[in-house]
């Protein structure tokens, strides 16, 4: 049973059937999935969801698929942790970490969008899926496609770091390096998407793909005991996840699954690429494109496709935006690791650093519930901390040497160990 009632243009309202299209033919606005919420009433309940599988498909009634899930059967349902140590450091009463650094199988929030897109691709009869990516998205598409038995085409800029390339290559997709700058790669990919009958997950399957991000918000609500945090801080790159977490909250409220506490949502960006935060702070709806310059590469998008919708969601909710410098991002990565045992990548560091600023500036009150969205894993981005950590001491294998080390006398003799 599916509650989907086709696609609709977000700008002019024109209706479209459920297929691999993503922009309105008339006004070129983005298409969005429509659901029959009235038909869900009394059927989609806390009980029906709780009885579902322990993965993101427990929310399948609110996701745009018709048949059975084909991908992501172990994705989602990541930890929501009460962050008591961080609460003390930040001087706040109730703080949570929603931790997608633990999202299976490639350790980022992208599993959510890709699980839905791959399932939809199979449903629509595609045998090849693709994406153009510099990291997390490609890793996720390659892994899910391998498991689902689809051909995967992954396009990357030619000058990517080895770790990012290997993180996809291991799953054996067809990978093509494209010689050119970011604009060239963009243009070529849009031509490829036009010409080949492939499911490019974030392009022609975008309306379905983006819906998967709602599960990040659904899980927060369910894991808090069917409640919403008053304040949610979320990173912004292309602008998919933030509006969809907010949409997830609004859907749960609409269906009577959680009380309407008027949740507020906040956008976090790196100071070196902050077009959305800049627009929010300037009180503008439209985004001024930027040239990114930050260590937070996974969120360095200078002209976000859905930036406008991030601004809308933030404004409608009464939230705000904050940015963080590269140094603040690294400090926040270290702080989260040391207080809560979670190692995140710069996107997560950005979000925590922005949260701290929003608390310190009084935008987020210290006595209300706060959720920090951690969307990626630090093991993929060791470069950003490798020079920032004290190397371990090195001693001969004797108790005597160890005792000397403990009493502090040997510290000057210790040799740094290459990491």
């Amino acid at each position: 049973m599916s509650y989907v009632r086709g696609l609709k243009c977000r700008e002019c309202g024109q209706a479209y059937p459920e297929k691999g299209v993503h922009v309105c033919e008339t006004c070129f606005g983005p298409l969005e999935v429509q659901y029959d919420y009235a038909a869900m009433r009394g059927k989609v309940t806390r009980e029906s969801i709780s009885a579902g599988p322990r993965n993101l498909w427990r929310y399948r009634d609110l996701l745009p698929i018709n048949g059975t899930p084909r991908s992501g059967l172990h994705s989602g349902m990541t930890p929501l942790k009460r962050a008591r140590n961080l609460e003390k450091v930040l001087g706040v009463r109730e703080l949570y970490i929603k931790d997608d650094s633990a999202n299976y199988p490639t350790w980022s929030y992208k599993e959510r969008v890709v699980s839905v897109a791959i399932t939809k691709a199979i449903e629509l009869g595609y045998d090849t899926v693709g994406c153009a990516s510099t990291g997390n998205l490609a890793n996720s598409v390659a892994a899910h496609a391998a498991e689902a038995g689809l051909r995967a085409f992954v396009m990357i800029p030619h000058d990517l770091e080895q770790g990012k390339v290997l993180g996809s290559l291991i799953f054996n997709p067809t990978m093509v390096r494209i010689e050119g700058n970011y604009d060239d790669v963009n243009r070529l990919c849009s031509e490829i998407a036009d010409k080949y009958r492939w499911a490019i997950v974030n392009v022609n399957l975008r309306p379905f793909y983006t819906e998967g991000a709602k599960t990040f918000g659904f899980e927060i609500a369910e894991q808090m005991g069917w409640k919403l945090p008053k304040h949610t801080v979320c990173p912004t790159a292309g602008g998919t996840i933030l509006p969809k977490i907010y949409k997830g909250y609004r859907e749960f409220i609409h269906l009577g699954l959680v009380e309407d506490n008027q949740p507020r949502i906040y956008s976090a960006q790196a100071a070196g690429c902050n077009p959305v935060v800049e627009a929010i702070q300037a009180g503008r709806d439209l985004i001024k494109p930027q040239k990114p310059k930050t260590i937070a590469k996974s969120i360095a998008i200078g002209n976000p496709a859905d930036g406008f919708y991030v601004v809308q969601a933030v404004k409608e909710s009464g939230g705000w935006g904050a940015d963080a410098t590269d140094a603040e991002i690294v400090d926040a990565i270290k702080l989260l690791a040391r207080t809560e045992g979670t190692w995140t990548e710069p996107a997560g560091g950005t979000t925590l650093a922005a949260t701290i600023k929003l608390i310190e500036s009084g935008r987020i009150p210290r006595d209300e519930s706060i959720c920090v969205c951690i969307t990626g894993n630090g093991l993929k981005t060791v470069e950003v901390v490798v020079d920032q950590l004290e190397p371990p001491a090195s001693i001969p294998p004797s108790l005597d040497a160890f005792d000397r080390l403990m009493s502090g006398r040997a510290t000057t003799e210790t040799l740094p160990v290459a990491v």
Partner: protein
Amino acid sequence: MAKVNKRVWLTFGSRSLVEKPILWQMARQYPDVSFDIRQASVTAEIGIMAVLFEGEPDEVAGALDYLKSRGLTVEPIEKNMIES
């Protein structure tokens, strides 16, 4: 040669760009390229338009290059194909 269609987002990213008749100037240079504005939002400081261009491939490419040379951001409607 066959005519082509190009759907693009144009961004006029500053007041000085918003206040110049750049599309009109483009049309004078490329009179055989038609443009059809399907959606637009323009304020004093910034303007964004969804535009359909049509014409000979070289002419359309020339017109878009001209717009770039005047400082506009020109992107395919499918922007941000590359995601992290």
